[in-house]
């Protein structure tokens, strides 16, 4: 995606008659923030792993080497049957999560969008409500 976008910008640059290196580099520099963020996050991740090993004390015991599972003693492997209810809660969570993600930027520019924004958001809210009412009425929110 990023690469094809770069290519697109390069073509644009060529179409506009930029042919020397500095112009093309100037186009590519649009992506410098993303590239540096990528490099930085890799660097920080690697650094944390290595520095804690090198600078901190390292006295392993069998208990410490066990995978961390919220403090519980781990049992079995990860491949086992899980009640489908958890999945349902997860889907419901995504539903409302998306709702919040949409509502927040809308609320910020609410005044500028005027009636149009209200109507479009109202429709979005209506669609979500239909799904929610359905889930509620068929008993999707009851745990037992």
């Amino acid at each position, binding site marked *: *995606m990023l*690469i*094809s*976008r770069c*290519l*697109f910008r390069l*073509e644009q640059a*060529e*179409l506009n008659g930029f042919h020397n290196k500095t112009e093309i580099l100037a186009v590519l520099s649009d992506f410098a923030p993303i590239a540096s963020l990528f490099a930085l996050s890799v660097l920080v991740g690697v650094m944390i792993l290595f520095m804690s090993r090198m600078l901190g004390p390292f006295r392993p015991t069998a208990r410490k080497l066990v995978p961390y599972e919220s403090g519980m003693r781990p049992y079995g492997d990860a491949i086992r049957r899980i009640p489908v209810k958890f999945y349902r809660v997860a889907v419901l969570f995504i539903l409302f999560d998306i709702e919040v993600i949409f509502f927040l930027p809308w609320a910020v520019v609410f005044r*500028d*969008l*005027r*009636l*149009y*924004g209200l*109507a479009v958001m109202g429709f979005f809210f*209506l*669609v979500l409500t*239909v799904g929610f*009412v*359905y889930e509620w*009425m*068929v008993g999707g929110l009851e745990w037992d």
Partner: protein
Amino acid sequence: MFTVPSLSDLNLAATLPATLLALGASVLLVLDLFVPKGRKALTAWLALAVLGVSLIVALLSLGDVVDLGTGEGAFFGLYIADSFTDAVSVIVLVTAMLGVAVAYNYLERTGMQRGEYYVLLLFSALGAMLMGAAGDLVTVFVALELLSIPLYILSGFRWRDEGSEESALKYFILGAFASGFLVYGIALIYGATGTTAFGGIWAATRDLLAADAATKYVLLLGAGMVLAGLGFKVAAVPFHMWTPDVYQGAPTSVVAYMSVAAKVGGFAALVRVLAWGLPDFVLSGQSAAAWQSTVWLIAALTMILGNVVAVAQNNLKRLLAYSSIAHAGYILIAVAAMGTAGVANEAARAVVIYLMAYAFTNVGAFAVIVAVERDDGGHTDIDNVRGLAKEQPVLAASMAVFMLSLAGVPLTAGFVGKWFVFKAGLAADLVPVTVIGVLTSAISAYYYLRVIWFMYFEEGEGKAQIAWPLAWGISVAAIGTLILGFFPYLLSDMARGIALAFGG
């Protein structure tokens, strides 16, 4: 500076058939909760009413000659309301109405009756309609998901039955994979052209080719991936693997609807993408669009594999699954023909005509299997229709009509569809693939006629269970197949106004 649009800019009136269907389906979802368990006939009737209203609205604007540019856009070009949209809507809505009629008794006697069935069917019909109305790759993707996700659920509607669950899971996993291809293709096209709107892609493609920029290969890769994603939906070789298993495992009433609706949606989007989005995509030294040779190769493979493998099938649902693969191949001839300048509109019309003919015929053929099938989902082998003509003469006669139409015998709708498709293929100078089409249809006659032979000339106790909505569905499909065969101008009139391609 961004200006806030007004509500009238959305041009909701142009999207009326789709909007009505969306509202109707949403209301029905909530309304169905208040319908008591034994009275789901009410939900089925309401679903039919919603589809009927939407169909009437779509029919009212059908046949208006709308040239490119005068076609109304809605939602800022995401939705296009032109003749193609209306024609696709009509096909989808007819299919969905037949689908409801076919399903009701079947669900009742197999104990699968739930209101959600009809609601999901309405939503997937909406998805198929929107694929025909797409003016933007984003619409294509959203509509594809709206079409597919209800179909995944419907395939698993006979839950606790392993075949149905397997079918749903297979369809879901492979479908999600194909969607991934489509999205990646869309991303590449966006990367190459800087837009997802078809009009913008068209303009950018011209610029790219004029400048002979290397980005055109990114565009080509993107177009190929979109082709793969949509090829999965229409069951074209080599993306056909899911079809027989899913068709065999899913409840037959679902397959009756799905086999047509998914195909209509997939081809509608394919026509939109290729005709609108990438028409002048002619690489230097070539006379036709860059994607044409790929499409006709897929068409040839699809026809050969579908028809040859169908010969060996003894289960009727698998037989019709391979037959549906083969029919995707015939339609792909017309899609390939769209790559030749000057033939594009004729070929797009051929696609629509074929799909309309196919809708009546294929839903009807599966409806007959619904009648023959036992309550436990078994009894769908070709042996089970032995002697059906003695027990159920009308049913057997309808099945004979559907089989002849699928084989493309004159005076049936299937013949008209094939005639237009092959004509488009020849007009585009795609002679080899058209010849393959004709030869493989000759092969197909063998396995279609074999079904008729079993019904009429073999001894046995072919039994069927028919009740009135199913009987209506089969009758409408059979009469429709015959009427369209006797009066082909009905089909060509429906497609008359379609003018999609910029090149003409």
